[in-house]
């Protein structure tokens, strides 16, 4: 089975702050990590390879430093890595990104399964996975919480729903996005780290994937971000003072109206 896993390098959410003046993400000095949902996608792919055999290819679109997350993926069990990187990709929205990734997937070719994280923690759109499937013209299912079994002809998965889950069966090729419940990502092995440091990472430019210039980067992105702003604080806050008994008294008074 040939599995492609899409991964994205994102700023570590615990370090991200908004610039109070420009209201944009202040990325300077913020550590980059592999999008957490993508770690689960990778683990699902590697686990599947370990039971069914085959190959796991990790694919990322991003600047040259995104190689870091690809090497991390290699150290966790991926077999090879492809970085789609070109200055002309800068400023891509989910529309342009899914187009670009679809071109890269076609270039890789001959795949059975694509696994993506449910969403990236920086944009939080959850659109790239489904968008990629639509571009490729293959079926997809989102929010997969378990891969029940898979063989050469079909794969059976559980899709998380608000209450319970659906059991779905699909032939190949197919694309899934996964939620965190699907597995516990493994820690990289030392041998994996050694291999990853030396691995050659394939680079695709816009020309390599024969991308239409009008469909990539900022010019290929219909989305316009009008404003980024921190949400207004909701509700009023109160800090009580006095002795503990007095504070408890005040607290009880305060919450009384809300008690059934």
């Amino acid at each position, binding site marked *: 089975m040939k599995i492609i896993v899409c991964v994205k390098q994102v700023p570590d959410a615990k370090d991200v702050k908004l610039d109070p003046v420009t209201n944009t993400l202040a990325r300077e000095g913020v550590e980059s990590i592999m999008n957490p949902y993508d770690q689960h996608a990778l683990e699902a792919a590697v686990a599947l390879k370990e039971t069914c055999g085959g190959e796991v290819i990790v694919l990322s679109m991003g600047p040259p430093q995104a190689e870091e997350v690809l090497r991390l993926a290699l*150290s966790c069990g991926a077999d090879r890595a492809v970085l789609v990187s070109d200055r002309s990709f800068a400023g891509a929205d989910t529309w342009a990104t899914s187009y670009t990734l679809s071109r890269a997937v076609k270039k890789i070719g001959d795949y059975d399964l694509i696994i993506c994280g449910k969403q990236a923690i920086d944009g939080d759109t959850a659109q790239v996975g489904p968008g990629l499937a639509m571009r490729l013209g293959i079926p997809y299912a989102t929010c997969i919480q378990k891969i029940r079994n898979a063989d050469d002809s079909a794969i059976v998965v559980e899709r998380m729903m608000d209450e319970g889950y659906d059991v779905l069966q699909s032939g190949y090729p197919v694309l899934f996005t996964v939620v965190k419940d699907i597995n516990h990502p493994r*820690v990289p092995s030392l041998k994996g*780290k*050694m291999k990853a*440091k030396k691995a050659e990472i394939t680079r695709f430019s816009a020309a390599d994937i024969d991308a239409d210039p009008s469909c990539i980067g900022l010019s290929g992105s219909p989305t316009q971000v009008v404003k980024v702003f921190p949400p207004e604080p909701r509700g009023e806050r109160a800090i009580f003072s006095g002795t503990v008994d007095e504070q408890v008294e005040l607290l009880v008074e305060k919450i009384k109206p809300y008690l059934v």
Partner: protein
Amino acid sequence: MTIPFFDRRNMNFVLYEMLGAEQLTSYDYYREHSRETFDAIIEVAEQIAREHFHSHNVKADKNEPVMIDGRVTIIPEVKEAIGHFTEAGFLASHHREDLGGIQLPWVVNQACFSIFQAANISTVAYPFLTIAAANVIEAFGSEEQKARYLPPMLDGRCFGTMALTEPQAGSSLADITTTAVPTPEGHYLLRGNKMFISGGEHELSENIVHLVLARIVGAPPGVKGISLFLVPRYQVNPDGSLGEHNDVAVSGLLHKMGYRGTVSTALNFGENNRCVSYLIGEPHKGLTYMFHMMNEARIGVGMGAAMLGYAGYLYSLDYARTRPQGRLPSNKDPQARPVMLVEHTDVRRMLLQQKAYVEGAYALGLYAAWLVDQHKYAPDEQIRKNCGLLLDILTPIVKAWPSEYGLKANYQAIQILGGYGYTREYPVEQYYRDNRLNPIHEGTNGIQAIDLLGRKVTMFDGAAFKRLLAAITETIEQAKSEPVLKEWTGQLDQALTTVETATAALLETLGQEGIETYLANASLYLEMTGHLVLAWIWLRQASVACRRMESASGSDQKFYRGKLQACRYFFHWELPKVHYQSQILRNMDRTCLDMQDDWF
């Protein structure tokens, strides 16, 4: 915010700036490595230690292993954490590639292990014991023993122990009575009781291999009649599958002050006279083989003590920086804002004392590990020989000094937290309890003192001792030209002469008054020499800090300033102790020797 339990910046300083660990990659055995691979591997260690070891350190302390229906039960987090350690490949990391390892230098291995020790010393004890036992089998086992036992020990299916102590024989191994009877089949039947066997029984692995010291029937008395045996908990069939349970029974668990997550057992071998055991190497050479394991274990004990001290230091430092308390003596206004604890000079003294002890001990431990690499793989034969000598003489110091002074550091960490530090709500009391084991196990510090003065100082006609003095002199000569270090080079030179003089006087006593008088004050000798060695290690760190300071800025510059200040503390407050210690030794003080039992 999580308070750090180890300091990566200082690790990088010792590993790369002081020891130049990258240079090891020019050795053939380490050619596949680079600074990048070292860093990547350390990151894996850091991640596993933080996420899977540190997370249950307190829980393991509060829920020590118990016997339920004859089986040892341990909290599940321990097995899970060791699973991650094993799957990552740390059990085999330093071994050859054909054994499943990545030929990682021992110094980088120790750097990784130090993170686990700081995170959770009791959980990591299980894989450490296994690593040490596997090293012995690899070094001295037969080809069949290696083929049968090494693969499962290196992939985590089988754990290891070392079984030396008996109820009646602790430090005195000459008095062990466990016996081995040869059988026509070629194996031996073992019978005897062992005590304080860490990891002696558990369900963390499929099997356990005990390395047991015993006497073959008819063996010479004393240590010259001790052999080493491999005793599996379950027999291992030729195809690697597990056979029947061997005759090894747990007679009880020991309930300890600290290290509570590591199960400590009393084991009975051969209650039913069918404890099948296999001789490792030649008969009567067991102690030599076991010391191969013990010497590595002793370096590990020293590092563990340093790391527990280090974790306490970092916790108390964070506490002192965030806890407002009182005002400076010059401020008489009771309405004024309180200052943070760290503003008080006496608190800074306690922090500085901890820093001097733990960063000194840490650098010494990694230096010893670096010597292991040099001794094994340096291309130059003379370097290999010299490093072997240094390792020999330093091993008792590497074990004993951090275990004494890491504990003193923990004492000060508790002191800084005051009443809170004495409660179980804060981790510093656990660090203290855990660390209290280190002066006791793997050879008490009293045994280390006898090893240093009774064996190491005189071995090879004093060659190891002379090599140590020469190494210290080299550092003094190199540091002399640096004005900042001039005062300390002079002080270290004086201390060196003092130790040399005391040693010469002791050796003269040995010839005139015999071994009893010679060894009477061995512990003081160990402490004095330990302080000399630590001052040397601090001067080495200060030399690097001096060189780097000029081009450093920001946090790096503060880091180097901190190094110089800690070195200053050690030279002003600690090193002078060697002079009065030397005086007691030169005077051949007989106070302890002459004391009589019925005078107490």
